[in-house]
C-alpha cells in the first residue's frame, strides 16, 4: 500500500465511490452488501500497491502500450500482473478460473490477481463496482447488458485485441460483443442454448415422440399427466427462469424483431401481440409444476433427474445438476429438443435464447494504465479454444466460443447444443440481458411475471399497462 505521496493516482477511494457508499448506508439497505463493496474496493487497492512496481510515472496518461499490446507479449518474458474480477463463485467454474489463471501465468509470466464475488452479489453491485475500483478485466454478459455499461463509458473498447483474434469467432459472436458505437467491448468466452430438456430413458419407456408442433406438445403433456409425470418441471423462485418461457413464446409467436423491439422500448407492452404471448402461456401452465413459485431451478432439475417430471425448459447449464448428482449414466441420459414451432411465419427464424458470457476491460481500474498490456494479453488468452476448454472440462455446461476449440471431447449433448445454435437464424441473449437492467430486476419484470403466474386469468391488459407504465417511468438510458 506504500504509494508515494506525489502520485496523483494514489489508492485513495475516488469521490463517486465514497459518496455512494455513505449514501447507501442511509437507505437502510443491506449494510453487508455495502460492506462487501468496500471490501472489494479495499482488496483492489491493496493489490494495486502491493504487487506492482510502478513502471512509469502514473501521471503519464498517454495511453501506455495502446498499440503495442494488440499482440500478446512473448512467452515468459513479460512481468507484472493483471487483476481480474470474477463472478464464477460456484466450485466448478471457480476451479476453472484458477486453472486458467495458472496456465496464463505459465505462458506469459504475468501474475493474475483474481477477486471472486458471489454471482448474485456481483450482479447487484456491478454499477458501483465499475465506477469504484474495478479490476482490470472482469467477467460479464453480452447483449444490451454489455452495451449499457459501454454507453456509460465504464468499459474500455478493445478493438485492437479483437482485430487480432476475430478470425477465431463467427460473425454472430462479433455482433454480440459490439457496442452501440460500433466498437468492440468484450471477448466471448462461452454460451449455452435454452431448449426443452428431457431424459431419453423416460421417453423410451413410455414411447413418447419428440413434439414438433404445439398440438403435439399439448398431447404429450396430457399423456404424461396420465402417466403420473409432471409434464414440465418449472422453478421460478429466483424470478428469472420464467423469463425463458416468455422469450421463447414471444420469439415463436411474434418473431425476433418484435421481441427485441419490445425489450428495448421500441414496441409497447400494451401491444395485443404481448397479450397473445400470455394467452399462449396460459395454455401451457396447467402442465407446468404447480409448485414453481417456491422452487429454485436446481430443485426443479432434480425432479427431472428423479423422473418425476418429463420435460424442462431451461439452459444447458441444467447439466450441472446432473453432473452434481454424481451418476454419469444420468448425464448421458439427458437430451433436449428445440421448443416446438407454433406455425407462424417466424418458425423459419429458429430463434432461441443462447446467452453469451464475455470478458471485458474496465475503464476505471486504478491499475489499468500500468497493466494495460497485461490486461490485453489476458483477454487475448481467453480468446483461445485451449483456454476455454479448461473451463468447459470442469463440467459447467458452458460451450466454448472459439473456432479453434478442440471438440473431440464433446459429448453428444454438447455437439447437439453447438448445432442448434449454429442452425438458428436469430439468437437472443435472454430477457434480462436484452433489456435494461432497471426494467428486468426483482421488482420489475421478475415481479410482473410472478404476478401473471400467480393468477393467469387476471385482466391481462391491466397488467400490461402496469408494465408499460413502469417502463415509461424509468429515466432515460444515456
Amino acid at each position: 500500500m506504500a504509494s508515494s505521496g506525489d502520485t496523483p493516482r494514489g489508492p485513495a477511494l475516488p469521490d463517486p465511490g465514497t459518496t455512494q457508499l455513505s449514501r447507501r448506508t442511509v437507505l437502510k439497505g443491506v449494510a453487508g452488501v455495502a460492506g462487501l463493496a468496500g471490501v472489494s474496493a479495499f482488496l483492489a487497492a491493496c493489490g494495486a500497491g502491493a504487487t506492482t512496481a510502478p513502471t512509469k510515472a502514473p501521471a503519464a496518461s498517454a495511453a501506455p502500450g495502446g498499440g503495442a499490446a494488440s499482440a500478446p507479449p512473448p512467452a515468459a518474458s513479460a512481468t507484472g500482473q493483471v487483476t481480474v474480477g470474477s463472478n464464477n463463485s460456484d466450485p466448478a467454474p471457480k476451479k476453472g478460473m484458477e486453472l486458467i489463471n495458472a496456465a496464463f501465468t505459465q505462458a506469459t509470466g504475468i501474475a493474475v490477481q483474481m477477486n471472486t464475488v458471489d454471482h448474485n452479489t456481483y450482479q447487484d453491485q456491478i454499477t458501483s463496482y465499475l465506477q469504484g475500483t474495478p479490476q482490470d478485466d472482469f467477467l460479464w454478459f453480452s447483449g444490451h447488458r454489455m452495451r449499457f455499461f459501454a454507453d456509460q463509458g465504464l468499459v474500455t473498447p478493445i478493438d485492437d485485441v479483437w482485430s487480432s483474434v476475430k478470425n477465431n469467432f463467427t460473425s454472430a459472436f462479433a455482433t454480440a460483443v459490439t457496442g452501440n458505437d460500433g466498437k468492440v467491448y468484450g471477448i466471448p468466452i462461452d454460451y449455452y442454448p435454452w431448449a426443452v430438456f428431457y431424459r431419453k430413458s423416460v421417453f423410451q419407456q413410455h414411447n413418447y415422440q419428440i413434439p414438433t408442433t404445439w398440438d403435439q406438445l399439448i398431447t404429450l403433456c396430457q399423456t404424461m399427466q396420465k402417466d403420473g409425470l409432471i409434464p414440465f418441471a418449472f422453478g421460478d423462485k429466483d424470478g428469472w427462469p420464467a423469463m425463458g418461457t416468455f422469450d421463447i413464446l414471444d420469439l415463436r409467436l411474434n418473431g425476433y424483431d418484435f421481441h427485441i423491439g419490445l425489450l428495448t422500448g421500441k414496441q409497447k407492452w400494451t401491444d395485443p401481440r404481448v397479450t397473445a404471448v400470455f394467452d399462449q402461456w396460459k395454455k401451457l401452465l396447467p402442465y407446468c409444476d404447480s409448485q414453481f413459485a417456491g422452487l429454485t431451478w436446481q430443485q426443479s432439475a432434480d425432479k427431472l433427474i428423479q423422473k418425476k417430471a418429463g420435460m424442462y425448459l431451461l439452459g444447458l447449464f441444467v447439466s450441472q445438476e446432473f453432473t452434481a448428482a454424481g451418476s454419469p449414466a444420468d448425464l448421458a441420459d439427458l437430451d433436449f429438443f428445440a421448443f416446438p414451432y407454433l406455425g407462424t411465419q417466424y418458425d423459419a427464424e429458429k430463434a432461441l435464447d443462447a446467452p453469451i458470457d464475455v470478458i471485458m476491460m474496465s475503464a476505471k481500474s486504478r491499475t489499468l494504465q500500468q497493466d494495460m498490456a497485461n490486461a490485453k494479453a489476458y483477454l487475448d488468452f481467453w480468446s483461445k479454444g485451449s483456454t476455454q476448454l479448461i473451463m468447459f472440462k470442469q463440467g459447467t455446461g458452458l460451450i466454448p466460443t472459439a473456432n479453434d476449440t478442440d471438440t473431440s471431447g464433446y459429448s453428444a449433448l454438447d455437439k447437439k447444443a453447438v448445432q442448434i445454435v449454429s442452425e438458428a437464424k436469430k439468437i437472443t441473449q435472454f430477457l434480462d440481458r436484452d433489456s435494461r437492467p432497471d426494467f428486468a430486476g426483482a421488482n420489475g419484470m421478475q415481479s410482473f411475471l410472478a404476478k401473471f403466474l400467480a393468477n393467469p386469468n387476471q385482466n391481462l391488459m391491466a397488467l400490461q399497462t402496469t408494465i408499460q407504465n413502469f417502463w415509461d417511468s424509468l429515466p432515460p438510458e444515456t
Partner: protein
Amino acid sequence: MADPRPADAVPAPTSDVGAGTRVSAAVRHRYSLLTRRDKLILTLMVGIPTILDLVFIWAPTIASVGLSFTNWRGIGAITAQNWVGLRNYTFLFTQYLFFWPAVEHNLIWLIFFVCIATPFGMFLAVLLDRDIRGSAIYQNAFFLPVVLSLAVVGFIWELLYAPGSSGLIDGALGLTSQTNAIDWLGTPGLNLWAVLVAASWRQVGYIMILYLAGLKSVDPTLREAAAIDGANEWQTFFRVVFPVMAPINTVILVVTVIESLRAFDIAYIINHGKNGLELLSTLITNNSISEANLIGFGSAIAVVLLVISLGPIILYLNRVFREES
C-alpha cells in the same frame, strides 16, 4: 456573591480593549462554575457527536430527500436534467404495482408483532419469572434464535417450509404429492404469514429476555404488599407489576415498532421480496442498490419509510420529554 461592581464597572463599548476585557474576564471567572478546560471538554463532548450526527445521519437523510426528486441512476454527476420534481412520488403512489402491497405488508407485520409476537414474549417472561424448575433451560431455548441473524433464520425456515417431500413441515403433515403439497413460501397471501411465524420465532425470544430483565428488577415487596392486600395473581400483575414496568413497556413497544418497520432480511433471503413478500425495505434495496440502480426512485420510497418511521419516533420522544419535565 453579592458584588456591586459588575453592574457599573463594565463599560458598554469595548473600544477600550485593555480594561474592558480584563474586567469582563474577571467577572466571568467569578460567576462561571466551569473552567476554560471544562468548557473545552464540554464543547468537544457536545460538538463531536453533533458533527457525527450531522454528517452520518442528517446529511445522508437530506441527500436522500433531495435525490428523491431526481431520476439519477448512480452514474456520473447529477445535472439539471435529472430533476423530475414529484414524478417519482406520483408514480409510486398511483401506478407502481408493488408499493401499496408493501405498505400493507409492513402494516400487517407491525400489527402481528404488536398483537401476537410481543405479548407472547411477555407472557413467556412472566412464566419464567416464577422460578419454575428448569427455568434456565427454557430461557436459553427461547433466547437461542435471537443470537442468530435474521438471514440465518431465513435459511433455517426455508428448509422447514420447502414444498412437498423436501420440506419438513409438508413432510410431517404428509402433504407430499403434487396436488396437495403446500408451497408455504411460494404462495402469495400465505407466504407473508409463514414469514411472520419465522420472524416471530426470533422476536418472541428477544422480547422475553428484555421483559424478564425488567421483571427481575421489580421490587418484590410490591408483590408482597399486593398479596397481603388480598390481590390475586391477575390483579397483582395488571394493577401493580405492569404499571411499575412502564419504562420497560415503552422500550418494548419502540423495539417492536422498529423491528417491524425495518423488517428486511428474511423476505430478502427468501425471494428478494417478490411475489407477496414485498416490503418497503426490499423495494428500496431492489430499486436502488441492485443492478437496476434507480437511486432517485429508491430514495423516494426511502423517504416514505422515513416519514412513516417519524410517527413512532416522535411519539416516543414526546413521552420521554414529558416524563423528564
